[in-house]
């Protein structure tokens, strides 16, 4: 699946997007965040406070308990500040 990062999540991870293949035990968005956190310092910094991180699956907002099976694109970003 493709992961995309925006704003300071992108800056901290150091990537705008990447393709990942998480192990089968990674079932939800929260699991994915926990798995990503272990991938390196940048990830750990980006996801240090998982409560503030927002996620979208295939361009729709989802909660941390959303299942990721079948997802094409998962995005992580800070609370939005548009308008």
């Amino acid at each position, binding site marked *: 699946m493709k992961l*995309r990062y*925006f*704003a*300071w999540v992108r800056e901290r991870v150091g990537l705008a997007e990447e393709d990942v293949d998480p192990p089968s035990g990674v079932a939800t968005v929260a699991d994915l965040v926990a798995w990503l956190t272990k991938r390196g310092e940048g990830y750990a910094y980006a996801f240090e406070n998982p409560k503030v991180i927002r996620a*979208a699956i295939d*361009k*729709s*907002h989802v909660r941390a308990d959303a299942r990721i099976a079948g997802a094409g694109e998962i*995005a992580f*970003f*800070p*609370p*939005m*500040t*548009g*308008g």
Partner: protein
Amino acid sequence: MNTTVRLQREVFDVAAEVKKLTHGRSDVGALVTFTGICRADENGEKIAALTLEHYPGMAEAEIARHVDEASARWPLLGATVIHRFGRIAPGEDIVMVATASSHREAAFAAAEFLMDYLKTRAPFWKQVEKPGGTNLVEKTWVDAKATDDVAAERWTAPRREAAK
């Protein structure tokens, strides 16, 4: 319904956009427009510019979903939402919302609803550029405001009550 949702780097013309909602028809009795403008200060500090990042594809889809919801809640005849991205200088427009209806209540309410949701649900992120004059431009991300969440939340509260 006459709907326009557009994201663009360029400036927009509010008067021209509004005219598209009313031109050649006589059923529109109320038109509300809101324009969000870049201020020269953020939290009391002078800024040189804002830079807006967005999630292409999702931003348009999210705004369109809320325009659909607004038209389901209120008898709208038209709605236009235009949001800019990229670097925006103080005094320049950032976003516009225009809503048209037969009567003012629906137009006012729908415009406010759309702006409240744009602030909290549309994937845009503002970055502040501080005035410096050095080669290294200092940029900081704008924090989300709890007051914006409260403003958006009030549109869902009555519905939950109604569902009981």
